[in-house]
């Protein structure tokens, strides 16, 4: 067996791993629908059918130390990051054994210590500045991490998305934002959000790279996102990756999605990410029937076990409702330093607090010239001049802070 050549190679085990996670996501989704119909799911049920390649292929590019925050359709990302189906099942079933113990539902949970997962909230866009902050914090601590989150096509219209991306760009934060363009925001088609062909163009407002990728092709998703992650880890700042895919169900179980043209579902059904990947694995002889059957048997076994565990978990005790509003000694809060602390303390930390503005912001057009329709594209030149947060002096070696000369940064000589 020779695997197809890729810029970021994947081993056979990894290729099968991707399949495992995608298939597990799909099967878990379907089991949840079954449980929903049995009235065992509390509240709404959100499906990611059709988007498995997008969630799994992106999250799979990360290392253990890296951080994610999942949105509602990124159960695949949670699985890749080490959560188990039981966690998701118990969240949806509001059981005491769930990661939040029933305090919150769906994918609204996380793990700061081991898996480095931040819990989302319902308000779209809010995770973008938060994961920018996790990235900034990680760089300050010397951790060489990358952070990632996902946002829907609709979510890119929020103010929080803009402020977060903008801060990430201004800070050159090691952050990857995956825009999952699944064509719909609830009942609203993407063209109604903004007259753009590619949501990757949102990146142009921040002078950062924006990639477009076929979100139903898990290998393509992995390759594009891996490149973004590498860029971010090297300290070149945030990257936006638009993953084009399709939400194959309604917004949630209650929504029959009657507003979606039926032919649109047909079109995308022929591009089912699991079917496409199965075909790819077969055509490239990565697996045989036995390997496939093994994975599927494993998934069936694991899901069965986890559903049993979930169903056996009782609902929480009522008194729990009163607890936990404040942290009262239940958590020890400690930063995880991977650089010498002396670097961030005076006198080592000290700088000259002045700005330089090399070109004074001058317009390079001739006076009185006619307006050029649309300014120049954000190119490498623009990036090279972009401001960096860390002056050469205070930047920790290899901390991921950019090395390039900054446009407005501490000047060597003192002023004011």
């Amino acid at each position, binding site marked *: 067996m020779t695997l197809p050549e890729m810029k970021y190679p994947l081993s056979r085990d990894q290729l099968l791993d991707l399949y495992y996670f995608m298939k597990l996501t799909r099967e878990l989704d379907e089991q949840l629908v079954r449980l929903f119909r049995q009235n065992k799911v*509390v*509240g709404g049920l959100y499906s990611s059918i059709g988007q498995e390649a997008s969630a799994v292929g992106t999250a799979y590019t990360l290392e253990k130390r890296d951080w994610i925050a999942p949105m509602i359709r990124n159960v695949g990302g949670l699985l890749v990051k080490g959560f188990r189906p039981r966690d998701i099942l118990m969240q949806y079933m509001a059981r005491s054994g769930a990661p939040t113990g029933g305090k919150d539902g769906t994918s609204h949970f996380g793990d700061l210590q081991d898996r480095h997962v931040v819990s989302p909230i319902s308000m779209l866009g809010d995770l973008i500045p938060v994961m920018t902050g996790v990235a900034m914090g990680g760089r300050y601590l010397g951790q060489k991490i990358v952070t990632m989150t996902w946002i829907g096509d609709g979510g890119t219209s*929020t*103010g*929080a998305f803009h402020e977060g991306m903008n801060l990430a760009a201004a800070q050159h934060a090691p952050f990857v934002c995956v825009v999952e363009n699944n064509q719909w*925001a609830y009942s609203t088609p993407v063209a109604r959000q903004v007259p753009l062909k590619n949501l990757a163009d949102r990146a142009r407002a921040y002078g950062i790279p924006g990639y477009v990728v076929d979100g139903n092709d898990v290998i393509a998703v992995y390759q594009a996102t891996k490149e973004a992650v590498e860029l971010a880890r090297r300290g070149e700042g945030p990257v936006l990756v638009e993953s084009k895919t399709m939400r194959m169900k309604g917004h949630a179980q209650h929504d029959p999605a009657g507003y979606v043209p039926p032919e649109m579902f047909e079109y995308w059904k022929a591009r089912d990410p699991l079917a496409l990947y199965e075909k790819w694995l077969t055509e490239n002889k990565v697996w045989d029937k036995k390997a496939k059957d093994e994975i599927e048997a494993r998934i069936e076994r694991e899901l069965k076990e986890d559903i049993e565990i979930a169903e056996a978990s009782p609902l929480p005790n*009522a008194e729990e*409702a009163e607890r*936990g509003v404040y942290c009262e000694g239940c958590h020890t809060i400690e930063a995880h330093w991977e650089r010498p602390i002396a670097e961030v303390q005076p006198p080592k930390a000290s700088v000259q607090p002045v700005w330089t503005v090399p070109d004074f912001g001058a317009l390079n057009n001739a006076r009185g010239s006619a307006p050029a329709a649309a300014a120049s594209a954000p190119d490498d030149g623009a990036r090279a001049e972009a401001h960096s947060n860390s002056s050469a002096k205070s930047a920790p070696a290899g901390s991921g802070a950019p090395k390039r000369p900054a446009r407005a940064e501490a000047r060597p000589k003192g002023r004011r």
Partner: protein
Amino acid sequence: MAPVTMVEAIREALDEEMQRDPSVVLIGEDIGVYGGAFKATEGLLAKYGWERVIDTPISETAIIGAAVGMSYQGLRPVAEMQFIDFIACCFNQMVNFVAKSHYRWGGPVPMVVRGPCGGGVHGGPFHSQNPEMWFVHTPGLKVVYPSTAYDAKGLLKSAIRDNNPVLCLEHKFLYRRVKEELPAEDYTVPIGKLAVRRPGRDLTIATYGAMTLHSLDAAEELAKEGIEAEVLDLRTLMPLDRQGIIDSVRKTNKLLVVHEDVRSGGIAGEIAATVNEQAFEDLDGPILRVTSLDTPVPFSPPLEERFLPQVADITRAARELARY
């Protein structure tokens, strides 16, 4: 006339006002083709077209901002928050642009913001909140919070016709649970007047929204024990019908406030302060309150049940007060 649910009453109000006044336009997320997450605007796009039923991007700040702008044009926009919890995303527009416009420079803002609030449907921390006090505490806004289909329709109509910004809170638990026959003819319910839902002599229960139903249930039980509770449905939280509350307290001499909103900083405090100022001598017992816990709204049913005020909590507090 067949009885209609609260959400149907709201749709009727919108429809009738749009028919009556072409200045009325709707704006919000998924309100057009889909008819709204709770179907409050169903059928209105088909009838009134794309210009009057405006599906927006996911941008609460833009929704409120655009509504303000349209209202400066003399229009009467009605903005929907898909869930009222998302009003936090346009809070600045609400409290700084909308609320202060008329006072600062005489720019009236005849707009309505409406949306589903409240718990009891396992919506979790972000789909169950009661945001009223943030806005009751912001001079320049009016806040209404009906408990019946009749009031929901009548208050929404008043809100649309009002020359000031009005926040209409619609309890989602009541959307399809209360039902009643409505008058065939046009009617409004005045903003700023409470309704006595049940007269009584032993104590006053001041409440609103879904807790009106709980309080009436409690009053029923209390009556069996010989305690006659007067149940006030506040209906409008700002301007608060202070006189209506005082009048009742003058009669019963005891006051219990029940609200679904969290305890600290809830409207019970404002009512307690008002009654102290205006009817302290009439009090034969402490003003008590039954409220939700001072926590976010938990998701799991047993937790949410503990979080929310229950009928038993009301009867217990009322008994204590009656005995006082």
